[in-house]
């Protein structure tokens, strides 16, 4: 980790890391610590009185069925987004891997959605599904389906899932294509000579070998769905209707900034923090330590 050849200086390294450490302390550590501290308090809305209540905020949350609803909702949302965007990306990557002509062009055309902010993606999709003038609403109408995500919770969830998935397909596609192209061509040729057709080659050779990347992407997708989709929820449904699309991060924001329940929001943030730590640990433990298949 340290280069064999290195400098020894008394003050220079400290000066070099100072900017980052400073910002980290002021804007990461201190607020994180504050968050944890505040989760042990109950403040009234005007900040006049604060009461130290140990784990009361936590027990309240953990026994609150509404909170658990939110947890399950978030998990459902995350895994749906992860599953859908990974499947579609896999399909596209599989086919792009097979062709030679135009692969570059297709890749370009498929990765640009990554550059679109989640909130913009949300705005686009909510426009297309607008209950009165959305183009997709009109199409559904012709099948007798009257779409209105402002009233129907299931449709609202579907809408945010679609918007979130749309954006992630690019990212997954990029990594999956890279993983597939890292497989030596001679492996595929050997399988072909052994008698395996394209579908069987994909099933028995390509798919197992891209599993490490797939697992890594799963973790990334879940983290994305937990946090970066805030913009989508905020702009598309505002958590509604009737909390049908309120995911954990949104609830933390809404309880804190709007409901002004600072203690409760801080507790939720802390729980989310623990969740991220867990996911990061899983990622580093299992994904980085995946058997290195390259011979």
């Amino acid at each position: 980790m340290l280069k064999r050849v290195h400098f020894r200086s008394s003050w220079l390294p400290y000066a070099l890391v100072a900017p980052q450490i400073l910002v980290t302390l002021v804007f990461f550590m201190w607020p994180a610590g504050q968050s944890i501290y505040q989760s042990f308090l109950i403040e009234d809305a005007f900040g006049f009185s604060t009461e130290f209540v140990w784990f009361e905020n936590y027990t309240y949350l953990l026994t609150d069925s509404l909170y658990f609803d939110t947890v399950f909702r978030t998990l459902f949302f995350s895994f749906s987004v992860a599953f859908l965007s990974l499947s579609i990306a896999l399909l596209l990557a599989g086919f792009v891997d097979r062709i030679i002509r135009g692969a570059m062009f297709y890749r370009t055309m498929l990765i640009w959605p990554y550059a679109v902010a989640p909130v913009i993606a949300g705005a686009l999709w909510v426009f297309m599904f607008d209950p009165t003038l959305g183009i997709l609403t009109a199409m559904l109408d012709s099948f007798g389906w009257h779409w209105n995500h402002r009233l129907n919770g299931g449709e609202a969830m579907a809408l945010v899932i679609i918007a979130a998935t749309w954006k992630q397909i690019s990212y997954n596609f990029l990594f999956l294509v890279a993983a597939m192209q890292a497989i030596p061509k001679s492996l595929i040729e050997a399988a072909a000579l052994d008698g395996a057709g394209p579908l069987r080659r994909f099933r028995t050779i390509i798919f197992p070998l891209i599993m490490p990347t797939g697992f890594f992407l799963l973790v990334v997708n879940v983290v994305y769905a937990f946090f970066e989709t805030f913009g989508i929820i905020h702009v598309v449904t505002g958590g509604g209707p009737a909390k049908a699309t309120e995911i954990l991060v949104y609830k933390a924001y809404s309880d804190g900034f709007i409901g002004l329940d600072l203690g409760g929001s801080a507790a939720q943030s802390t729980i989310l923090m623990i969740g991220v730590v867990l996911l990061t640990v899983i990622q580093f433990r299992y994904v980085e330590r995946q058997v290195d298949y390259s011979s």
Partner: protein
Amino acid sequence: MIEHRPLGRLMSHLIIIVGLLVIAFPVWITIVAATHDSVRVTQVPFPLLPGDQFFINLKAMFSSREEAIGGIPVGMMMLNSLVMALMIATGKICISLLSAFAIVYFKFRFRMFFFWMIFVTLMLPVEVRILPTFEVVADLGMLNTYWGLTIPLIASATATFMFRQTFLSIPDELLEAARIDGAGPMRFFFDILLPISRTSIAALFVILFIFGWNQYLWPLLITTEKSMYTIVMGIKSLLETADGEPAWHIIMMTALMAMLPPVIVVLCMQNLFVKGLTETEK
């Protein structure tokens, strides 16, 4: 594909093209909406082809007196976004270069401690520390400033880790040769390390610029004055202003403007972008 099957090849291309069209569809609709007037845009059935109102809508959007979008200055927002994105990207890169250099090339007390501290920031996206960070920024009087928009976001660890990896892969002999030539640490840093890391820096710049431009939650929280809104977060305000139907044609034009810079960056610097993505995730 190994087999000589023209039909199979055709199928592959077709499926990919269908995928492409489905992915591009939302943006196509956006372009269509942005090029019609307010009347046509709200009519059912929604048009499938672009109209001719592109420049008219463009002009209207930039004019800050447009009532339909709540009088929010779009040009101003784009400027804010640009400044924010540039500041975040350069800030992150500068800080991370220095830290990575220190951690890899110096032996000093607390080295590992600092390393782990930086590592921990990976696990603290802004969404889990919203309230307290807001308080800190407010206490420092940085609300509604460019500094407030950017500094809380510039210390995360991904850039540091990537540079660390790059530096670790540079052969030791380079440093030894430089030392023999009489270079001190900072000379080494500027004359040798930086030029070698050029492509990594460029790749990371692309990623971070997009990251910075697309920030939503944080600008939302700390800007209360319309003049400091960024275009990505401003979308929400545009959608909320109207008493009646939102002015979709202007909003979609705004969305287009909000999307354009990052997408152009990705398209023009595709290779750097891909390199940046794949290397920061290791």
